[in-house]
């Protein structure tokens, strides 16, 4: 089992595509996306609005080596600054197969 970094990101659903492009550019090998996640943060409640994706979050996990995680963090920071959201990094073991 290989030690890796798990990066978790919450972002407005309308900006999901932009986030995924950013991740790809930073060199991640894969990601997992949970759409239609609700939440609350600095910018108020995101409780869904049933008509558009305006008040909806997406949650993305990407697992990568330390250096890539560093790059991801850097390239995501301006995005989060402008658009809000959250990014977490933690340690995991990746089961090789």
């Amino acid at each position: 089992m290989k030690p890796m970094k798990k990066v978790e990101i919450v972002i407005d659903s309308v900006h999901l595509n932009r986030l995924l492009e950013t991740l790809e550019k930073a060199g991640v090998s894969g990601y997992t996306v949970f759409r239609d996640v609700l939440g609350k943060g600095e910018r108020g409640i995101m409780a869904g609005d049933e008509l558009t994706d305006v008040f909806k979050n997406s949650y993305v996990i990407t697992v990568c080596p330390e250096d890539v995680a560093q790059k991801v963090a850097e390239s995501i920071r301006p995005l989060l600054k402008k658009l809000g959201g959250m990014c977490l990094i933690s340690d995991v073991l990746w089961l090789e197969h």
Partner: protein
Amino acid sequence: MSLELLLQNILNPPVLLFLLGILAVLLRTELEVPQPLPKLFSLYLLIAIGLHGGYELSKSGITSDVVKVLLLAMFMAVAVPIYAFFILRLKLDVYNAVAIAATYGSISAVTFITAGSFLNTLGGKYGGYMVAAMTLMESPAIIIGLILLSLFARRNENSSIEWKEVLREAFLNPSVYILMGTLVIGFITGEKGWKAMEPLFGNLFRGMLAFFLLDMGLVAGRRLGEIKRVGLFLVAFGVLLPIFNASAGIFLAKTFGLAKGDAFMFSVLCASASYIAVPAAMRLSVPEANPSLYVTMSLAITFPFNIAIGIPLYYSIINMLWG
């Protein structure tokens, strides 16, 4: 506006179901129309109105009257967001002014549909090309809004507008696309096509509208709590601008000699504000603006106002002028 007309509008299952939806939120029931059912209803209504409009257009043909209406529609779609922007700038920063102006420059298909249903119950009619006019009026406000933004906002590089994206978002957003597409399909397939589609997209129309308005009531009701945060200026704006826009529409309609039913539908288009296409576009291109403002104003103020009061009000004005 006579009280009778007001009641005639309100005491209809669709409008009453809308009010039932609002009340459900006020009473804190847990009633909901879960996703993606609202999308089923809105898709249905768009397809139905597109196919029917195209069919009507295939009967009437594309006359000079049609061209006149489309030009008027285009004119209002460009003018409204511009003057709305300058009014809003009296109190708001550029970002929010742009987003709200674009919201009011565009239209609400469900308001249009509800007005059409109201007109029908009074025995009135409108031309199929009004659907084309509506389609035309959805997008320009987004473009105008972003032009205003690039003229008046100082944004750093990072925030430069991606025009290609914006144009796609404006002209190929789902509702514009589906309306345009089904309008063409209805036009091409004519009588025969419509006869095959009528049982679903014609006969059930009013029932589906009523069903959807129940959900719109829930959505609007959930936003009502935000009204106090919107502030008095914007609340007044959300009621007065639609009245003003409708009046401007009526004035143009009279000047250019539109038929009564068309004039009514045109005034409703001018008065209505977008809560689907434009908010989605603004969220993407103007993230600095606060969606709680423009979504709340459109959904919780202007939409209910138009549905309950605006529609009979504009109709009674037109009734006076057209006789």
